[in-house]
């Protein structure tokens, strides 16, 4: 009997000490250091303070929209992790954008841009909202002319680039600023760094659920960025009007696939999905628990699951711990 009791004690000790260990999939914390371009080599000259400052000024200035009513910051609001709070954002003339506004935090670390991944360059991506008819609706040529007529901008461009305003300067300065919107200070990061108390017990339980093979969340939302940046159809719709990646590849198997977003700051970036159709994280969890809408291209990782209310709360609590406590901004 004593031997049995000893064995039980030993087993209990072993069980207790291994409960807090990292799961099979250990996420790597994102390294936030200098602004670098994950999709290319860092160019120190393009990240000069003058260029960053110019980009920041442009980012917040409605001068870059046709009727001067919206700026980049209208849809990428700092307080909301540089996203906004609408399902679809509002551009010039009150027109609605086609997709939900993504967060720009850590955008420098993305390998490509646009939800169908058609744009490998943060610089060239500037053209998209600038010229989009339901976004800022200002052809680049007109943007250049408008900035040339502004003495303060002409001076800033000459200081930063040695030239009058032009497309190269506009795209490079905006991208330079965007590369500085960096985070890496969530309580989740602290937890991964070894501070077990950084997450509450409820959040730690949520983390275990998140990384479990039953829920499969971390299969796509992996690593420090909480995204593998793969293109997945997560069953949001049974039929997609927005073709997603198929718009670029023209392949039927890419219908309804979109770039997996990073979940960093997800608590700040509601509503969710490519079209903002889910208002809360609770709706998102319920969607995955139900196993998606069953589109033919839906990921095999969506199998549905059952969650007790307390588990649901824990999962949401964990996702809320992914909020940056501080952003590294110039």
């Amino acid at each position: 009997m004593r031997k049995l009791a000893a064995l039980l004690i030993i087993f209990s000790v072993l069980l207790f000490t291994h409960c807090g260990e990292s799961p099979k999939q250990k996420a790597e914390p994102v390294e936030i250091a200098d602004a670098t371009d994950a999709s290319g080599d860092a160019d120190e000259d393009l990240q000069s303070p003058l260029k960053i400052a110019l980009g920041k000024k442009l980012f917040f200035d409605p001068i870059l929209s046709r009727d001067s009513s919206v700026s980049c910051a209208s849809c990428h609001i700092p307080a909301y992790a540089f996203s906004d709070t609408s399902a679809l954002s509002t551009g010039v003339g009150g027109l609605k954008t086609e997709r939900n506004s993504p967060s720009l935090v850590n955008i420098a670390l993305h390998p490509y841009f646009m939800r169908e991944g058609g744009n490998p360059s943060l610089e060239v991506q500037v053209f998209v909202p600038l010229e989009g008819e339901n976004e800022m609706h200002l052809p680049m040529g007109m943007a250049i002319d408008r900035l040339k007529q502004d003495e303060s901008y002409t001076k800033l461009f000459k200081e930063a680039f040695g030239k009058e305003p032009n497309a190269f300067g506009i795209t490079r300065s905006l991208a330079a600023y965007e590369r500085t919107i960096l985070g890496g200070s969530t309580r989740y990061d602290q937890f991964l760094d070894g501070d077990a108390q950084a997450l509450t017990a409820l959040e730690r339980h949520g983390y275990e659920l998140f990384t479990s093979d039953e829920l499969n969340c971390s299969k796509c939302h992996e690593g420090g960025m909480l995204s593998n940046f793969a293109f997945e159809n997560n069953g949001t719709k049974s039929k997609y009007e927005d073709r997603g990646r198929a718009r670029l590849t023209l392949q039927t198997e890419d219908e309804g696939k979109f770039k997996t977003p990073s979940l960093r700051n997800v608590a700040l970036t509601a509503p969710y999905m490519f079209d903002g159709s889910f208002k809360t994280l609770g709706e998102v969890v319920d969607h995955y628990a139900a196993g998606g809408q069953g589109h033919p291209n839906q990921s095999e990782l969506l199998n549905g699951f059952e969650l007790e209310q307390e588990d649901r709360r824990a999962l949401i609590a964990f996702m809320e711990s992914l909020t940056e406590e501080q952003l590294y901004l110039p």
Partner: protein
Amino acid sequence: MLPMPFHNAKFYATALLVLFAVACKKDDPGEDDPGIEPEPKKVVISFDMMLGGEPVNLDQSMVDKNGQWILPTQLKFYVSDLTLSNNSEQKVLSEIELVDFEPFNAQINNPQWENELAFELESGTFNELKFSLGVRPDLNNSEPTDYENDHPLSVYTNMYWAWATMYRFVILEARGNQEGKSDAAETLVYHIGTNDLYRPGQRFDVDVDMNGEGNDTVHVEIDLEALFDPAKGVDFSTNSNTHTVDTEDDYGHAVSFMDRFVEVMSIRP
């Protein structure tokens, strides 16, 4: 004492007249003054929109032989590797050009493009004109900020599809009504692109002779009546709007449009 002639006023008057005539003799250009050069000879490739057998401009409407009322409002497209050739040689006139039917606007300071393309060509006779319709795939991957303002691939063309980092090959916009009713016209929009719709190696028989004096012009006619022929071309009751990739139908419509657009080009005799 001076000889007799120098006492004669007539002598001096005559001498003055001779001197004046010699001094004012007009120089023969090109002989004594090498600074003035003749204008270089040019071959002009003129792309012309045609409706009912007649050239038309943008914002000029007519009713075609099928009773359709058509009003083109915008037409621009890229041609690549524009080449003249004969049996023994090829002259590459240009790697890439933008053809734009928008009339030149002197109020605009930015670069503008035209439907007439002029290239210096001093000599030679050529019996074939060749070009591709669209942007060659290697150039289609480039970025507008790489180019000078007046380059056909620059930002000022408004042809760039930034979301996919490529260019639109053709933009044709018009108003049309198949029953000939201008007040019931619908908007027709065709924005065509992607490498799959690049149409290389379009060949046309021509008769270009640069060995004589002056320029030579080749007229490439674009028959809008044939383009929008409901039976053989683009039936805009079922295909009035495509941006090539937005829907599956979009792509099919774009293919039909591009294939027909190429077919309706011909050389004016």
